[in-house]
């Protein structure tokens, strides 16, 4: 299985809009946008930022990561087809603010930063966001979008969450070790 860094690099060199990404290691084939190409809503720069954030927040592990299931593409559709103008504006503004904040923490372009640097910058920002920094509410919203989109995909729901369509029974007390 390719590392998530390899996956991200593979996406970055992919040019030409939406493309089919055959994920490695038996993961399902997913249709992906490219971090280097604008979506229907996101600019190329926004798409690159969103892809990096999605990958850092929900990486590939033994289950698909956010990029494997095309969370950026999902959110591009969400902003294009679901959001109203006010939401789009607020979302775009928060992305811009987020990019600046991450650049400061990373000491340069966040989307091009070494993985360890980017991870450290986002970890710091995430901690601040969940420690009462109201200026980072936009990040919390975005993190919510990314997470919800991820678990709304088949990969996120079935492989990561072990979502079962028809459980057939209710068991209120399952030991996690089991």
């Amino acid at each position, binding site marked *: 299985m390719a590392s998530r860094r390899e996956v991200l690099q593979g996406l970055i060199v992919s040019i030409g809009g939406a493309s089919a990404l055959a994920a490695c290691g038996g993961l399902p084939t997913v249709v992906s946008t490219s971090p280097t190409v604008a979506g229907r809503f996101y600019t190329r720069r926004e798409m690159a930022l969103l892809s990096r954030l999605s990958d*850092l*927040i*929900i*990486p590939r*592990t033994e289950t698909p*990561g956010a990029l494997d299931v095309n969370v950026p593409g999902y959110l591009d*559709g*969400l902003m294009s*087809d*679901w*959001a*109203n103008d006010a*939401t789009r504006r607020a979302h775009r503004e928060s992305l811009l603010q987020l990019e600046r904040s991450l650049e400061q923490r990373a000491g340069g372009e966040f989307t091009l930063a070494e993985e360890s640097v980017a*991870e450290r910058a*986002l*970890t710091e920002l*995430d*901690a601040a*966001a*969940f*420690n009462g920094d109201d200026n980072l509410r936009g990040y*919390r919203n975005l*993190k*919510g*979008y*990314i*997470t*919800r*989109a991820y*678990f*709304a*995909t*088949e990969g996120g*729901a079935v492989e*990561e*969450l*072990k*979502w079962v*369509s*028809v*459980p*057939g*029974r*209710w*068991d*209120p*007390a*399952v*030991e*996690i*070790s089991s």
Partner: protein
Amino acid sequence: MADFDAIVVGSGMSGGMSAKELTERGLKVLVLERGPEIVPERDYTDQLAPWQSPNLDSVAQDEIAEHYPTQYGGVAYAIKESTKHFWVKDDEHPYVAAEGTSYDWLRGYHTAGRSIMWSRQTYRMGPQDFEANKQDGNGVDWPVRYADIVPWYEKVETFIGVAGTAAGLPQLPDSVFQPAFELTGAEKALKSKVETAFPGRNIIPARIAHITAATAEQRALGRSNCQARNRCEHGCTFKAYFSSLNATLPAAERTGNLTIIHNAIVQSVEYDAASNRVSGVRVVDAQSNEKRLYTARVIFLNASAIASAMILLQSKSATFPNGLANRSDQVGRNLMDHVSGAGANGLMSGFDNMKVFGRRPSGGIYIPRYANITEKNKPYLRGFGYQGGARPLGNANGQIPGIGQAFKEAHRTAGPWRVSVGAFGEQLPNPNNRVTLHAARRDRWGNPLALFDVRYSDNERIMLEEARKDAVAMLEVAGCSNINSSPVNLTRPGNRIHEMGSARMGRDPTTSVLNGWCQAHDIPNLFITDGSFMASSACQNPSLSYMAFSARAVDYAVGLLAEGKI
């Protein structure tokens, strides 16, 4: 000769039960439904996997603003892209709230009405509920007592299927139960600590209209046990939860005595002054605007507390210039709902190594009313129950700190459990809380718009303030941390979707619309068995009571028909 033996207006919770009971007694019955037909194979969406609905299954924001501002504002959790067809479009079905007031009229116009979208919490009223009006002087005395309705509760519960546990509580009598959905460990801990610290308060599994041990009667209707999917607001292909469409209407249909006509909006009820009988209903077709008259020997109004009152008010004649069966001037008055907006939540540790399997439908726990029952001298009348539950915090939609693998996996590990409880309080009957016909504005079919004027009293406000404090106290004794309890923010009237009381029953024809059989005091072959008849709201979810009173009223009406009295 009449077209039918009986007409039932409305196919929802109570209309379905009226139709079932009437047809099973051999009457030819016409059910009039104002909305289109719901075909489960076509219209239920419970088989869709989450990834088969785009955009998080959310309705586009512009579409909400245009078509669903009130419906979505009231029940956002239930209005999804895949379920929006179960809810009316506000712009197509407008209504008006009096200046300085607001009202949530949350509806679905289609086969089975809101019985498709209800929350399925199912509780009997208790003896105290039928005596409250008499004791504290609010409203009029119920002309029935708990013992009168017990056999009908049992009959309905056996038919619909109620999952729950016997608790032996006088104020919340046990139903005929199928096995309950067992409490989680955190809920059991909450129960133990609260019941120890507050003798007289009890925590029980929510009683819900889901089949867990299907009977032969239920299987014969194609119903099967709940599969713990919690996709109920999409409809249920297993027919495991009760709705008219899953149970009563099929039961009526198999008798061969049922006719259902959809898109038939009832505009008025025909009244014959010479015989002092209603003889039929006038409808307008929602699609073609064609007007028709259907006749019957007996008429049951089950259109909802609001719509039934409006039909009466629209049915004016020389005998009833203020609306049919309205000599008391109580039609449309005493409109009640339940009131929420007070509660608390907190985290409970000690269960971090536990998770659940399956998705329990509807509620987890119920805290029956204790105020002014086991705990006296409250600074308000009557009381409230709490609905709630405890579940792992795990899947918190990204609102937990951290990134990377640990964050990702936190969504499938249980972590701390969040306990939450929210109050459902009784609203006192008040004749000034009413729905009337708007003097000028009409809908696209020419019917007057509903005009609501409903306000809470100090009793509801004080009650909910106390409910909030009680909720916090119970979570504290349970050892919860991070307890949150927002300032009380009362739900808008109507928001609990338990509207009732608009044609109350009572002993005196000059002060009430219906007698104890849900029969109009003024007109012997007119019955109203939706929430209109409720003389008080109690604090329990009311659908079970609507159905029990419907079954009882049918039994009475059929007896009168057999005796030639109506």
